[in-house]
């Protein structure tokens, strides 16, 4: 199991952001975390990483998360990044090499080559010297993936990787993610577009502060579970879900 989460609970002032959320993410799986706004999806990812202090237990690769930190990569929401920051694509990727270079270590030829190889894996090697803000949204996502690859991660936590990117770019990112999974990586992404869940992911975690349902898309991504997670508001959702049998999947 790449990641095992049990009873994650977090209270912001008087608001319960996470209420005993639990989930398991097998190695090599690709999971979509879905749920309504305010369901605590981003908070769930940050709590798993210990970036916010939540109660509950989290184990990565069978041990404490802190021990596996070098294997875990986190790709933040696009809105959380300052894109005017004076940093080039290659500099961002080199930030992923910090554990190797250390505080005073110089960036030698081997490290540079390592970073360039990571860029090549996401098809961004020709953009190495561009300022990060000069790229399109999808290219920026790929640079963050390259940073994660340079780090040597094989567990990827992505917060809405497809927010604000066009369809072609979305396809490019998903191709990169699927290639990573083929190499044994585990991928967990907060996802908003219900219509593409089945096409992109093999597992789903439906949550609304607590876990509503989790498991393979085929058996878990059901009308009943969605209604439970989103409430009646989903009736207004334009994705037009049909409401028959429990294994019914939404139109992709």
């Amino acid at each position, binding site marked *: 199991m790449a990641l095992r989460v049990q009873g994650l609970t977090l209270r912001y002032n008087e608001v319960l952001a996470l209420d005993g959320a639990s989930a398991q993410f097998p190695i090599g799986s690709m999971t979509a975390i879905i749920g309504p706004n305010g369901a605590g999806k981003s908070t769930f990812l940050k709590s798993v990483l210990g970036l916010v202090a939540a109660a509950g237990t989290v184990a990565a690769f069978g041990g404490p998360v802190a021990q596996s930190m070098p294997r875990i990569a986190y790709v933040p929401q696009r809105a*959380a990044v300052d894109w005017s920051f*004076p940093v080039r694509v290659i500099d961002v990727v080199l930030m992923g090499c910090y554990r190797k270079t250390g505080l005073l270590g110089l960036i030698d030829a081997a490290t540079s080559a390592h970073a360039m190889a990571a860029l090549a894996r996401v098809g961004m090697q020709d953009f190495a010297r561009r300022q990060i803000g000069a790229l399109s949204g999808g290219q920026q996502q790929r640079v963050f993936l390259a*940073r994660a690859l340079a*780090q040597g991660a094989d567990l990827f936590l992505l917060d809405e990787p497809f927010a604000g990117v066009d369809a072609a770019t979305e396809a490019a990112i998903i191709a990169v993610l699927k290639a990573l999974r083929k190499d044994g990586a585990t991928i967990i992404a907060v996802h908003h577009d219900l219509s593409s869940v089945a096409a992109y992911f093999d597992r789903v975690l439906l949550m609304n502060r607590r876990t509503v349902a989790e498991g393979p898309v085929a058996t878990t991504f059901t009308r009943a579970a969605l209604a439970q997670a989103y409430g009646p508001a989903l009736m207004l959702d334009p994705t037009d879900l049909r409401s028959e049998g429990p294994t019914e999947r939404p139109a992709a």
Partner: protein
Amino acid sequence: MIWQALLLQAGYNAALVSLGAALLGAAAGAAGAFLTLRRRALMSDAMAHATLPGIGLAFLAMVALGGDGRFLPGLMLGAALTAAAGLWAVQRLARQMHEDAATGAVLASFYGAGIVILTLIQGLGTGRPAGLETVLLGSTAGMLRADALVIGFGGLAVICALWSLRRPLAMVAFDPLHARMMGVNPRRMDATLMALVLAVVLVGLNVTGLILIVALLVTPAVSARMWSTTVTGTATLSAVIGAVCGYIGAAISASVPDLPTGPVIVLLAAGGFGLTLLIRGRRDG
């Protein structure tokens, strides 16, 4: 006279002061680059203004102990103590209100207290308080050789520290969550950066003065950012701009009687920023 000062021909002391101010400017520019990238620019303003009560209290303490009230290291120690207190107050208040409001409240309160103490000191008529007000706007005229050495080496130390920490500082400024995952402690980095900025403020007390040091921290940095696409490039260019402003400003101030150094340096930096805007303003930074 100004040209002589600029060309280091106005005497050994004046040359030393100009070089010291250049190193201070470089340190302020480099520290300011990281500070603005971390969006903490105004914090330095609160910190600088919070030095004033400490300067007054240190003066009183030194006079009470029978010493010279204007002994610079003593004044710096007092300044450091209340600046740290001001910084602590901002962080404490920021839990209850927005950080900008907390910064404003602390800045004004500490500065007000400092002005009251300074006024009281001038009323006492002891311990040669004349000249103490130069910490407000800076004055390099008649600066002692020892002071110039403190300023120069202080600036140099800050530059060395920033150079060795440039990578973790950049990571924390760009993506603090990722930095944390890579084993960098953002809180410790922020505290370190604040300590380095405090060192710049203290060293700069006699050069720019405490009111305008924020301009030497921020203005070169925002100019440099419009020219460079890397953090190291921004910090280096910012340091160069700061050094040039510090050098020329100190030389001009030293050769024109009664002209405070701080405003001259700040006007030079603002001129550089205006020039940058004219040339680069239409491009995306």
